[in-house]
């Protein structure tokens, strides 16, 4: 399949749009009509053809636009990509993993030619054809982590594993749900999750850590997480919150369907072979409310999830003030009918919306 890359922006005029293809393959995060934290890990070994789970690093129609947005963020604030000195080897691991996976999974878009340590990398969509020496930083224009993550969608946290703990010691973070790599770099797993309400008490992080410490080479894992964003803004960073926070107040009953976006993170976990670090890619998918409700099952379910979410979570996810307006909008797409289990759209089998009652 050849992907048609969109010409679009994630800032200013916000011309970002999902095609029908992108809507149908959207990673809807709710497998039932309610939501509570869970460790919800599963193996990351493919998924249905065409789904975002099929490839190890999903490439979609937003690829080039997201890479342009990342370049803008890094030019404005180089601190969004950092690597503590001992993490260079993990950076090479990351480069090797992504180049290997992308060239195998998308041979029409990416090529990797290896001759011992002499490597040639071809990224056709971005027009890159570059030869370099593996493990020799002097042959790359920037560090290996920055080099490859400027060419790969999603944020990347690289976690060192020491003393039965994971440490956030490197990363490229430009599409984050309101956390700062520059502030959190060097923290351990419990520390960087410290601001998350309720989950600590539920023992979620203890269990998640135990699982992640045991993610092994050749056996990656994945889970979904979600939040809400007004406008298709990728860079919802704390650094720029004083600039974008105000956008949350621009919602009206007329524009909410187009402006309010569900933001889903496909989080994956790969053991890195040479450094024994853990790569934690966090891929962000955005979808406007008006596109979600075009799938009847998702419209029904999102209304119920938003309605029943505990206040603490709605506050933490930053939409407590806008929740009443969201419910007014979503309520129009919930006819009270039952929904089928699981995350898939089930367009053929789920009944169309019936507000006649």
């Amino acid at each position, binding site marked *: 399949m050849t992907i048609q890359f969109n010409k679009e922006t994630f800032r200013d005029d916000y011309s970002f749009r999902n095609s029908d293809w992108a809507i149908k393959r959207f990673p809807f995060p709710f*497998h039932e009509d309610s939501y509570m934290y869970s460790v919800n890990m599963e193996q990351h070994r493919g*998924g249905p053809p065409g789904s975002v*789970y099929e490839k190890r690093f999903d490439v979609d129609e937003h690829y080039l636009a997201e890479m342009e947005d990342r370049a803008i963020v890094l030019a404005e604030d180089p601190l969004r990509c950092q690597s503590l000195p001992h993490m260079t080897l993990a950076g090479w691991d990351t480069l090797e993993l992504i180049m290997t996976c992308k060239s195998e999974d998308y041979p029409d878009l990416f090529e990797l030619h290896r001759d011992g340590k002499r490597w040639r990398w071809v990224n056709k969509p971005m027009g890159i054809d570059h030869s370099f020496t593996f493990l020799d930083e002097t042959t790359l224009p920037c560090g290996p982590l920055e080099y490859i993550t400027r060419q790969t969608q999603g944020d990347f946290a690289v976690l060192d594993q020491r003393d039965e703990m994971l440490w956030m010691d490197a990363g490229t973070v430009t599409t984050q749900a309101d956390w700062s790599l520059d502030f959190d770099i060097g923290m351990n797993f419990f520390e960087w999750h410290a601001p998350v309400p309720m989950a600590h008490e539920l023992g979620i992080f203890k269990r998640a850590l135990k699982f992640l410490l045991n993610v092994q080479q050749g056996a990656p894992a*994945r889970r979904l997480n979600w939040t809400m964003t007004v406008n298709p803004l990728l860079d919802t960073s704390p650094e720029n919150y004083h600039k974008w926070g105000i956008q949350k107040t621009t919602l009206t009953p007329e524009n909410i369907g187009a402006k309010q976006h569900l933001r889903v993170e496909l989080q994956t976990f790969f053991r890195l072979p*040479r450094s024994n670090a853990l790569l934690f890619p966090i891929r962000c998918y955005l979808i406007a409310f008006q596109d979600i409700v075009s799938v009847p099952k998702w419209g029904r379910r999102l209304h119920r999830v938003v309605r029943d979410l505990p206040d603490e979570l709605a506050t933490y996810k930053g939409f407590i003030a806008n929740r009443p307006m969201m419910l007014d909008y979503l309520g129009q797409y919930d006819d009270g009918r039952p929904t089928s289990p699981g995350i898939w759209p089930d367009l053929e089998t789920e009944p169309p919306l019936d507000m006649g009652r």
Partner: protein
Amino acid sequence: MTAAPQNTKAGAEKIAVTVSAVVPLNDLVTRFEFTRPDGAAFPPFSAGAHTVVEMRDQGRTRLNPYSLMSDPSDPSIYAISVRRDDQGRGGSLFMHRNVKVGDAMTLTYPVNLFSLDLRGRKHVFLAGGIGITPFMAMIAQLEQSNGNWELHYACRSEALGTYADQLRSHYPNKVHVYFDDQNQAIGLEDLLDGQPLGTHVYVCGPKGMIDWVHTTAAEHGWPSENVHSEEFLAPQPGKPFEVRLCKSDITIQVGEHESLLEAMERCGVDAPFLCRGGACGQCETDVVEADGEFVHRDHWLDDDDHACGKKIMPCVSRFVGKTLVLDR
């Protein structure tokens, strides 16, 4: 989230290999080298990793972990060195007696429970006997990155000093060898006191040596984070016992010379594992009911866990008593 049918298997991913060399090193130790039958490169690994070798021994499957001791930058081979243990459970004897060049075998992907702390300003390796093997890979890895290291290696005698000559001739200023039969010993206290801040010490060898290093380092004010060790426990024999596995809905017998984990596998129960040596935590199993005494031998559970009797590590721990019911 359930995006795909899940096919969860116990243990790490597997690699089919061919034995490419069997090299006796001395009376007790033999090196085994493996290549892939399809000629493909091995997955890269980090120094300190082990692989679990699957042995088909007359209808019985033995799964023994060994440190990878080849150069991590050489993807063409994996190598292990095996010390023959005449009193052991038979895995090392099988390797020494039965494994020949050209044999097809199965290894697991590398799993690392003894990795280098890459922040270290300096790495001091303390090896006892066959405990030299993970350091062979660590030294190769650090040499690639111009790392600062030194090795202190205690062996029984010159004849049994596996790789001692090779190491001394390659790195005469960094390798120090001590022979028991010449009354030589590592001067641990002075060695520890002299190290600059940011030094990490790694010990691999008999249990007594590991305990000695941890205790001495603590007495000399070393943070526990800077002292690393790896000790693979072999399951110890014990009295046979009976276990009820409630999820699988079967009752199984654990024989004198097999571990609880091995008995589960023999009975077709797909139980999780990685290290099979009480260290990784992967096989941790909840106890539903117990009337008797646990024989906990793992490094994973803490003292409270051991005392409360609610958990067991089936790879090395056993049970003596009337009733044991596990959530597996």
